[in-house]
């Protein structure tokens, strides 16, 4: 095939075929267009404020590395006047996170950004290795997911940062939209599709966990283009798979997305847009707070399955296996986490969201009888957000999910271990574990 010229400069040879519009671009024009589109996302959504200190949730992977690189470039090019720092979370999984953290350390030098690495052990008193030792390989993803969601916020508080950006891309959002759709969980859509998930402050304490803003500047960026950007700019990133969920590939929703993309590349952004539009139609999704708090829960459940929580060994794309898979997840979620947490008194709240007038209706059947077409099974939307009584983290429950999980972990900690508070754990514990592990 004769080389195709770039659609923009018409001079250089096209190397990139853009999934969103099929345009053929050369390397330089692609890099420029990619960066300009992120700039557009940042400005049209007013993501940043001048003088703001922003922590980039950095894993050393392609998404967060590209995010750091692009934001540094844009901050200089367009003079955002923001201060960018890197914040990494170490789950405490030997042989998994080590290499990624080395990559983040190099990134910190390459981008001249200060880096903070916070460990689960430091934050929760447990490394994931220790959690797995106690609860086994099944279900440990629940712990990891709940801990991770809070870890960035907790880290931000420690650093005195009010805004955390993450590398979630269009494929991630599309995947989550599909998952929620297949589960019939429309209320969760608005949370997972909004680009900013800020949290209304529930306290006046400037150090509270409740007012950390989260945003996803790469929300409209294709994963394919993120990888191509990293490739053509020669960025230093690391790819890895969690050793506790090998081959997960983030499950079959991901496979479905990738299959759709191959047939019709624009499908990914179309799913994202559809998710946004559907979210607007969910009763009570945004009106109650004028949209300002369209997503009270900071990037919470949206990341569910974002890691290996689904053991997707199935090769991919078939709806049947997909459904079986989701059912599995559902069962897992309900057996484990959801029941424990939703039991204490969620019932009263869950219907506010369906219909402003039926706030007192207590169970799902009544809601339906009143003509509501659907009854969301979980994910109470219009929750009264308060603070966890134990750790102060934003939570709709008295005790937040992490503290509930920690309680069960600490209760079952082997007797020969010193009892420790949920916040501090002596190094000695780790040593004991090392010994028992051999």
């Amino acid at each position, binding site marked *: 095939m004769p080389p195709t010229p770039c659609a923009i400069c018409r001079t250089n040879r*096209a190397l990139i075929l853009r999934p969103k519009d099929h345009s053929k671009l050369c*390397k330089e024009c692609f890099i420029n267009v990619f960066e300009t589109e992120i700039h557009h996302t940042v400005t049209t959504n007013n993501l940043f404020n001048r003088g703001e200190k922003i922590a980039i949730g950095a894993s050393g992977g*392609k998404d967060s*590395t590209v995010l750091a690189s692009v934001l540094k470039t844009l901050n200089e090019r367009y003079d955002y006047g923001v201060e960018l720092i890197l914040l990494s979370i170490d789950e405490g999984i030997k042989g998994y996170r080590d290499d990624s953290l080395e990559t983040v350390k190099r990134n910190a030098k390459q981008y001249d950004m200060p880096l903070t690495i916070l460990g689960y052990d430091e934050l929760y008193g447990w490394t994931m290795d220790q959690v797995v030792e106690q609860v086994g390989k099944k279900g440990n993803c629940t712990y990891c997911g709940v801990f991770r969601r809070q870890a960035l916020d907790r880290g931000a508080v420690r650093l005195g940062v009010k805004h955390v950006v993450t590398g979630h891309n269009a494929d991630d959002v599309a995947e989550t939209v599909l998952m929620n759709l297949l589960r019939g969980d429309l209320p969760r859509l608005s949370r997972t599709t909004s680009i900013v998930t800020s949290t209304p402050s529930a306290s006046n304490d400037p150090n509270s966990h409740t007012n950390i803003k989260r945003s996803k500047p790469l929300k409209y960026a294709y994963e394919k283009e*993120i990888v191509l950007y990293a490739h053509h700019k020669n960025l230093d990133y690391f*790819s*890895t798979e969690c050793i506790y969920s090998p081959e997960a590939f983030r499950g079959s929703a991901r*496979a479905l997305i990738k299959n759709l993309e191959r047939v019709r590349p624009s499908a990914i952004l179309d799913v994202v847009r559809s998710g946004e539009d559907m979210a607007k139609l969910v009763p009570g999704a945004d009106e109650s707070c004028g949209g300002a708090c369209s997503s009270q829960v900071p990037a919470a459940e949206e990341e569910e399955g974002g890691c290996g929580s689904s053991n997707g060994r199935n090769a991919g794309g078939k709806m049947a296996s997909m459904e079986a898979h989701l059912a599995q997840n559902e069962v897992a979620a309900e057996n484990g986490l959801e029941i424990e947490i939703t039991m204490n008194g969620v019932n009263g709240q869950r219907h506010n969201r369906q219909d402003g007038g039926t706030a007192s209706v207590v169970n799902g059947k009544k809601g339906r009888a009143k003509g509501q077409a659907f009854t969301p099974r979980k994910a109470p939307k219009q929750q009264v957000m308060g603070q966890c009584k134990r750790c102060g983290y934003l939570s709709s429950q008295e005790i937040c999910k992490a503290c509930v999980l920690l309680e069960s972990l600490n209760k079952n900690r082997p007797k020969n271990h010193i009892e420790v508070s949920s916040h501090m754990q002596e190094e000695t514990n780790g040593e004991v574990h090392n010994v028992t592990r051999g």
Partner: protein
Amino acid sequence: MSGTKDDKAIPITVEFSGGLEMLFSNQRKHQLSIPTKDEAGSPSNIAYLVKYLCENVLKDPRKDLFILDGSVRPGILVLVNDADWELEGEDKYEIQRNDNILFVSTLHGG
């Protein structure tokens, strides 16, 4: 290596990244000589290369992480001399001497 390499083999560089190197002996770059023609006598193309890689280079049993239904798994990008293979005819692209073929996965996490 053999004296007839010009007629029978094409020297190429194949690279794996984005996590795919894990399947290929943890080695990113592979210098290979592949036959000029496939079993049917047609010039070797990417489809043939993928098959060749599976049969000769991919030692990991998890072959389905690389191919699916006989072609490159969706989510793996293929670059031919840095150009998206979709610009080059995808798996019909006929491999030339000293081509650089890069397989980069978008599927792995950070």
